[in-house]
């Protein structure tokens, strides 16, 4: 969306125009959901949190002055919400549900009924062990390191954008990214050791 169009929509949204806000936020919702899903490691929670981000952005759109880009501003709200959610859970690691784990039912533990993944490529990919291990490793990172690595490697933000989003100096962003990768290398050792 061209910047002048964004600015016009922002002005209308600040004045309380809900339709303008909808047009502004819609292109970002998919990316925000992906970010939150990777941050908290749970797709269902990610929908609730994405909803929270949208509602909070709507409430606060009047206070957005354009010092950062609209996308950066949304990521900042999303990061705050994700970190709060992780804190509320009372543990640093995100909950990761394995498709291989049995379900707790009234009659005891039963095997999950997983849909035919041959017809659903996304679920096939999600079900693969490697992807699950990578997600588990990301969930092992502290929220500070996790946010940086997800924003850079998955969301594709630049150092500068991450620095603005997390309100960190550029050097801190780089060092956190390096530390996050080093930690992931330890956690994923069987998959990366001796990589060619």
């Amino acid at each position: 969306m061209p910047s002048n169009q964004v600015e016009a929509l922002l002005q209308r949204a600040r004045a309380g125009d809900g339709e303008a806000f909808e047009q502004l936020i819609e292109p970002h919702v998919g990316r925000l959901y992906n970010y939150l899903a990777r941050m908290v490691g749970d797709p269902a929670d990610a929908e609730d949190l994405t909803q929270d981000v949208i509602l909070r952005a709507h409430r606060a759109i009047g206070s957005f002055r354009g010092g950062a880009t609209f996308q950066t501003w949304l990521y900042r709200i999303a990061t705050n919400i994700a970190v709060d959610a992780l804190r509320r859970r009372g543990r640093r690691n995100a909950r990761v549900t394995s498709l291989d784990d049995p379900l707790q039912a009234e009659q005891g533990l039963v095997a999950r009924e997983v849909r035919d993944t041959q017809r659903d490529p996304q679920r096939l990919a999600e079900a693969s062990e490697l992807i699950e291990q990578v997600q588990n490793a990301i969930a092992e990172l502290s929220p500070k390191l996790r946010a940086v690595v997800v924003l850079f490697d998955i969301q594709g933000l630049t150092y500068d954008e991450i620095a603005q989003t997390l309100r960190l100096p550029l050097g801190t962003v780089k060092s956190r990214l390096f530390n996050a990768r080093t930690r992931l290398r330890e956690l994923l050792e069987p998959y990366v050791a001796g990589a060619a």
Partner: protein
Amino acid sequence: MKTCNHYKLLIGARVDGTATEAELAELHGHLAECTRCAGEVRELERVRRLVTGLPRLRPSSGFMPAAMARVRAQRVSWFDRLFGGMQPAEFRLAAMVALVLVVCIGVGMVALHGHGPGVSTSAVVVKAPPPHMAPPARPAVASANDEYLRECRLVHGALDQDRAFWGAEAVQLASYSR
């Protein structure tokens, strides 16, 4: 001779894909001699490929309409417009500053204007009546009592708002009219 620690930043930049040509040339010179750093670069690049290779997740198809319905139903107050996007720490700080300001302004107003209308009854009873509320001179004859009382009511019209004070004055007025 530079140690491996010196090259950490360059290794990070290379893995991130942000190293300049000069930085890459400097790093490659070191990597040619240091198998440990060369191995670290390979493994970190592999980590990056694994993370960037995660599939993009999407919300369910009904998510967006439901989310927008909630947005339309949401009422936005002026307070939310000002503070809605702030993170909790900032919010708490802003609220604390606001509270301190309110307290300071309140204390300042009390210091400037003294007691307001909400002073206690006991304070009024002890205090002498203000000059503009003092009763008029006692009438010489009894027939003037009605006029005197009417005047008193005009002068003390404001006392209706302060029943305690009016009670004390009424005792006084009764003694005058005798």
